[in-house]
């Protein structure tokens, strides 16, 4: 390959790379000097050798047209009512507390309402789950029968639930105070019986969602710990895990 041919190829590659950067949002479309690059392509056009170079030239030209399109979109956006400086948005987000940000979001949110029924896609997923499910005998002990008549009744009435949630939060704070801000997740959940543990885990899930406590995983052992939220960054989280509440181990 001659020197001029290599230089030409580098020009095409540089333009195509620039176009990719613009399309991915990493480069502002107005940072690209479209006129100058198009002039360079025009100068090179009569010297193109072979289909490879013609194709690359075409791709580069189409790319530059795309950049112009992005510039037009950018101007339209700036002229629209939605225009806000992205830096200002990032700054606002950075100084806001997570809870404050979420509560502000709620004021602009109207979620879709839908009921889920049995659909062909649902049946397909159910069949595949059933086929992959190991026999119950291989999955260890199942939970005991539900106590009393609470089968499909809510476990607690709303006021009772809020009261229990508050008590659980207080109990958790005491445990964290005692253990210098970090309590083993499985130790904390271990109750006097499996139902007690399940109730505690249920309440804990709300405390985690509300950002009262956060969860840390020890990367070395994989063990989970309940910790106080550190700064705004850790103010909420959730965890899905399983543990053998009747036995010794946990997973």
């Amino acid at each position, binding site marked *: 390959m001659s020197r001029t041919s290599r230089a030409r190829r580098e020009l095409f590659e540089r333009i195509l790379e620039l176009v990719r950067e613009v399309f991915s949002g990493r480069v502002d479309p107005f940072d690209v000097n479209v006129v100058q690059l198009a002039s360079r392509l025009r100068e090179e056009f009569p010297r193109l050798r072979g289909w490879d170079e013609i194709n690359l030239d075409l791709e580069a030209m189409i790319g530059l047209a795309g950049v112009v399109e992005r510039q037009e979109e950018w101007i339209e956006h700036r002229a629209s009512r939605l225009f806000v400086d992205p830096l200002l948005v990032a700054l606002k987000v*950075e100084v806001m507390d997570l809870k404050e940000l979420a509560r502000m979001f709620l004021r*602009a949110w109207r979620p879709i309402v839908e009921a889920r029924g049995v659909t062909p896609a649902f049946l397909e997923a159910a069949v595949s789950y059933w086929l992959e499910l190991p026999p119950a005998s291989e999955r260890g002990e199942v939970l005991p029968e539900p106590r009393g008549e609470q089968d499909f009744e809510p476990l607690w009435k709303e006021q009772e639930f809020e009261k229990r949630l508050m008590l659980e939060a207080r109990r958790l704070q005491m445990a964290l105070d005692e253990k210098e801000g970090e309590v083993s997740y499985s130790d904390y959940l271990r109750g006097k019986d499996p139902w007690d543990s399940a109730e505690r885990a249920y309440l804990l899930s709300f405390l985690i969602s*509300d950002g009262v406590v956060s969860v840390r995983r020890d990367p070395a052992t994989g063990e989970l710990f309940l910790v106080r939220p550190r700064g705004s960054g850790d103010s909420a*989280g959730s965890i899905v895990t399983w543990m053998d509440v009747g036995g010794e181990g946990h997973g």
Partner: protein
Amino acid sequence: MGEARGEGSEDLRRKVRRAAHMLLLRSHAKPGVKGWELRRALGRDYKVVLRLLDEELADIGFRIVAKAPDGRDASEEEYGEATFYVTFREPPDWPEIRGSGWRIDELAALAACVALISAKGGRASREELEDLLKSKLPEWKVPGILTRLVRAGYLSETDEGVGVGWRTRVEIDVEHLLSLLLGSRGATGAR
């Protein structure tokens, strides 16, 4: 004649119930029903049926929205191609949302992503969003949250970057969100 009017009214009631079933029960991978599906099932007066249903739903805090394929609110002329959804009429309170599976940090992340993407003209790179979220959340949580938001349809990711998804266009009043964000004092909870 009175009997005929009674039959007509009963027919309309039946159609309103049918429309409610179609709109509330998800039958596709994504929620929402196309205008032409509603027209086929409810007849030519489907717009009247939808208006009646919307009035009924208002009593329990819901509403019907119609979105054109590009995400705008559809005009009546565009109803055939539009997709119809039932949404909350007013924004929910946190206690209503607490049991829905969304965590407070995920909602905050969604607010931040939608605001930044909108401010950037509809597209931002994944790295930009990750950098923004890492300033608020533990680093390890960020990719998982972004993936969940993409899967739920709030964000849409292509080779060209991340934009807002179909669900954001239906559920979120982006203009209002930006005005709330810019109008916020911002540092009330800052640490």
